[in-house]
């Protein structure tokens, strides 16, 4: 293995026990993947933050107590609960105290307290081509695909060790040549550009894309070019969860796919698949619960964390009306967004409409049993994908307009889809 002097010193224990142990883990990983060198990273996203058991908490505390420090700027992902309003969310004190222990140990190691699965909404995002070690599927997919930074899927708590060592084995998506698209998904003629005025098109197309692609690297052609960050966020998060995608290319949109040629590295796609309206209908069938009709217990928005712009759009759609007494409307935002909402007065105006604003937590950690809720509505392709497998409830999928009308009416309001008015 070709090691730099500093890497040899770390392995030798000259920079402390934790750096040595972290490097040993990464060395074994490199050797197993037949990689003969490391690459320096300039950032890390730490997803070992949702409480999942004592071992996780104890491991971070052990690292922190041994004096571990992140060698690179490291942002923290969402936790299990809102750190201030956990009680109102009906979380157990156990969850909260574990979360506080996670907070303390990660901060002690120098992590930046973003506590969000959308650190790119909190002021921390990489630039094109930068090498990173990230965990959390939507962050990985967003950074790789939308920004063109480079990370493999570093599952917790491996990313902590990468951040501490400041480097990773040079393999997989770190290597430019491994990032080309293999296959192509094209939007069929029956999917018209103006349909994208309904923003539910983004998760629906991405769900269909992910179902075809699985965890391979493919490109998507035919998307609108005036796409917003919130649209791109829904695309990444949904594709990462329906298919396990760590990197995709959107021809004419994402930086490594400014042309089809670029996306495929000058080669021809190995396979071309068209998707049509019927595939979007199938995607919605997978994401939604058609059986729920009438009352809805809760509307959940903010997976990945709701952005400032989405909050502004929410106010616009509410148009001064209040959330119905017979339901609840929760939005989960990053704490950085809370601060800006407060500065502009939007926080107060939204809460005055009966909207509950939470931060820090992951929406999937929502306590359906304790809150006595059985019917859920959400606009998130990712949430709707995981909610059933993780919480046993299949939510109703709707775009933001449908979610708002439902929250105001207290009963499901479903609009048409653009192709079916």
């Amino acid at each position, binding site marked *: 293995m070709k090691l730099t002097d500093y890497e040899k010193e770390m392995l030798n224990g000259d920079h402390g026990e934790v750096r040595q142990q972290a490097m040993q*883990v990464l060395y*074994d990983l490199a050797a*197993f993947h037949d990689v003969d060198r490391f690459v320096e990273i300039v950032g890390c996203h730490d997803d070992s933050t949702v409480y*999942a058991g004592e*071992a996780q908490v104890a491991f971070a505390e052990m690292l922190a107590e041994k004096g571990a420090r992140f060698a690179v700027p490291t942002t923290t992902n969402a936790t299990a609960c809102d750190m201030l309003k956990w009680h109102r969310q009906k979380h157990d004190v156990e969850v909260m105290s574990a979360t506080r222990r996670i907070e303390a140990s990660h901060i002690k190691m120098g992590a930046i307290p973003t506590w969000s699965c959308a650190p790119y909404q909190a002021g921390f995002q990489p630039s094109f081509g930068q090498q990173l070690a990230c*965990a959390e599927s939507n962050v990985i997919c967003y950074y790789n695909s939308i920004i063109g930074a480079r990370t493999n*899927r570093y599952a*917790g*708590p491996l990313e902590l060790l990468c951040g501490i060592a400041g480097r990773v084995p040079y393999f997989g998506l770190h290597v430019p040549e491994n990032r080309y698209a293999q296959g192509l998904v094209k939007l069929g003629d029956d999917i018209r550009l103006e349909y994208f005025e309904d923003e539910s098109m983004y998760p629906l197309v991405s769900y269909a894309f992910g179902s075809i692609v699985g965890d391979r690297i493919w490109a998507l052609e035919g998307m609108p070019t005036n796409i917003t960050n919130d649209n791109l966020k829904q695309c990444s998060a949904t594709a990462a969860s329906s298919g396990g995608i760590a990197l995709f290319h959107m021809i004419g949109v994402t930086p490594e796919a400014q042309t089809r040629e670029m996306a495929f590295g000058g080669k021809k796609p190995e396979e071309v698949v068209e998707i049509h309206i019927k595939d979007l209908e199938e995607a919605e069938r997978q994401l939604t619960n058609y059986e729920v009709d009438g009352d809805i217990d809760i509307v959940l928005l903010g997976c990945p964390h709701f952005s400032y712009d989405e909050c502004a759009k929410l106010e616009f759609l509410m148009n001064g009306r209040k959330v119905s007494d017979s339901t609840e409307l929760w939005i989960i935002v990053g704490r950085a967004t809370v601060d800006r909402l407060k500065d502009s007065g939007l926080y107060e105006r939204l809460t005055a409409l009966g909207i509950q604003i939470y931060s820090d937590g992951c929406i999937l950690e929502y306590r359906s049993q304790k809150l006595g809720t059985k019917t859920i509505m959400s606009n998130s392709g990712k949430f709707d994908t995981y909610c059933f497998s993780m919480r046993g409830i299949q939510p109703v999928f709707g775009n933001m307009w449908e979610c708002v009308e439902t929250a105001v009416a207290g009963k499901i309001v479903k609009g048409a889809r653009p192709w079916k008015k």
Partner: protein
Amino acid sequence: MEKVSIKCKVAVSGNVRAKLLYSKDSFCFWGGADPQSGLIRDNRSDCYEKNMAGQVFAFPFGKGSSGAGLVILEQVRLDCAPAAIINLRSDPVILTGPLIAKHFYNKSIPVVNLSEEDYEKLEGAKEIEFFEDKDYIDVYY
């Protein structure tokens, strides 16, 4: 017991001999394995309701969520982790737990990869033995 040696690619090495729990289905630790008992909870697995604690758990691939590392570490803490793991291909998600166990907790959970042909030979085997720094395993029928 009859013994056959099989070549393997070593991801995490160690000395252990234990009973084999053999699966033909890809597996997701997060949600699929009980972190507090080692019980397999995924009803799409052919090992549904079996227990991996202290066994050599063979499954072709990992799949799904990236939480495997946390589950295995919790199993290590509660002493219900598998004794070793055999895959066709191990990804970093699967390796995280065993590598951290080795370098931080000095606990050995060997992980090796076999060729597809050799993997099929495991079916019906009773026990497997792993050896530190050796690129084969011994399979007992």
